[in-house]
């Protein structure tokens, strides 16, 4: 029974990925299939070649990787610091700030589009990669801060006091005591930040859509206009977009499941 349930979950999540993968192997130029097709009749990689012709793939990739390389560590650091600071506050101020942080989760993102556009315009960073990295300065989403906060609150407070008695500053306490004890949560935060920044289509569309700054999601998104005979190119793009995310999650899966702060 449990195995069956697990299989069901796996199928539900894996099926779309499998279909995309299968679709990307269909040769370019054939008419689109009538229905779902688990494996194309004569699979090939022509869609990937065509993808390279239609989009500046290496530049898209480079931009996306650049954004993620800067934004993910930055977001993780900010979230961890903010969560740590929240956890150190006396109960009263803490409750307030945690409440506000939770409230921020309810702010609809479209509310921020125009203010952010104006801000980026005035600072002069429109059509650079900066607007794609900037959310990391605010930990990408309040959710990561709350994650970090919960993790640091689970650490017995005497450990902070013991460190303080030894003269450890806040930064040293965070680095030597806090961070090693919440490594699983920190990994999870990095994963959340990665998924957001890697697939960040909207910010790219709004603030950075010139040739030079275009990232992978935007570049692939534009393929939606190809005609039916080239549909497999769109699938190939989706695979290129998905593979790094899957690899990144596989890479962090082991530390995520093995560490102690989940308990």
């Amino acid at each position, binding site marked *: 029974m449990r195995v069956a349930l697990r299989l069901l979950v796996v199928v539900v999540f894996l099926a779309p990925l499998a279909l995309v993968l299968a679709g990307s192997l269909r040769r370019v130029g054939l008419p689109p299939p009538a229905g779902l097709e688990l494996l194309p009749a004569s699979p090939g990689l022509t869609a990937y070649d065509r993808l390279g012709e239609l989009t500046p793939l290496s530049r898209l990739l480079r931009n996306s990787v650049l954004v993620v390389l800067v934004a993910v560590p930055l977001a993780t650091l900010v979230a961890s610091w903010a969560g740590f600071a929240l956890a150190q506050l006396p109960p009263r101020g803490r409750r307030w700030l945690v409440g506000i942080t939770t409230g921020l989760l309810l702010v609809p993102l479209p509310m921020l589009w125009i203010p952010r556009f104006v801000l980026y315009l005035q600072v002069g960073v429109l059509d650079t990669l900066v607007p794609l990295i900037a959310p990391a300065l605010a930990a990408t989403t309040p959710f990561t801060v709350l994650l970090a906060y919960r993790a640091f609150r689970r650490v*017995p407070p*005497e*450990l902070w*006091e*013991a*460190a*303080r*008695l*030894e*003269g*450890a500053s806040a930064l*040293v306490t965070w680095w*030597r*005591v806090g961070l*090693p*004890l919440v490594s699983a949560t920190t990994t999870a935060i990095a994963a959340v930040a990665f998924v957001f920044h890697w697939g960040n289509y909207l910010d790219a569309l709004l603030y950075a859509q010139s040739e030079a700054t275009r990232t992978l999601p935007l570049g692939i998104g534009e393929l939606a206009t190809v005609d039916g005979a080239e549909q497999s190119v769109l699938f190939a793009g989706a695979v290129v977009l998905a593979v790094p995310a899957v690899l990144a999650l596989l890479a962090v899966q082991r530390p995520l499941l093995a560490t*102690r702060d989940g308990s």
Partner: protein
Amino acid sequence: MLAVVGPSGSGKTTLLRLVCGLLGPDEGSVRIGGQEQAGVPPERRPVAMVFQGYALFPHLTVRENVGFGLRVRRVRRGDRDARVHEAAQKLGLYDLLDRQPAELSGGERQRVALARALVRDPAVFCLDEPLSSLDPLLRADARRELADLLRADGRCAVFVTHDQSEAMTLGDRVAVLRDGCLEQVDTPRALYDAPATPFVASFVGTPAMSLLRRGSQVVGVRPEHVRLVPGQDAFVHAVEDHGHEVQVLLDVDGGRLVARVPVGDAPPVGSRVGVVLGRTTTWPVG
């Protein structure tokens, strides 16, 4: 060695936190060896704290735990190792230096916490409920071991406990706290023989002093100073057999008395007996 004892919420732990600098006093001052400590940060006070539950860093080895403070204070590696080894030797932790706290027994963890305090070379040890997280069966041994260790070291130690028998057996002097106020500080003997307030009287000793209301006075009498004679003064409410002695709970005018009687001399429950009080202590009703 000063034992601080009191019911929970009486301010015992707060007192330790004031001494070690985790809290600042609203008024008054903290002096250690005559030196005013206001404005001195915790790490520069000549105080080391052993937390309740020990607060060992679970991700660090014994060596790293003991050397944590030295490392934070950027003591050079050679010196650090030497001092960690010295403390480990003193506490018999030498073979455990590369273990993590999770791999240690309760007693070993306590010794690691003590070693971490010892490397600071403090003038005062603060210990918060040092025995409470140990198995009750091991507590008596651990108590003796702890006493030997602290005495051998010859340093001042302040330790907090809610267990009056622990305070009486470990402390050279015992301070009794109640609701943040100091009720009495004295030797265990003086505390037992001449409690300053009815609260101290009712807190110290097993069983505690019996308190009787007599007009405008409270009269306290220890169970060993109650003698049973033929008579009608008291109603025998219950008899508790403790093996080496029998305690008799008596209802008398003004309250309840406990009497210690030799095994075999207990009156039957429900009967009436006469009572002669030996040494008593009296306080005005406050």
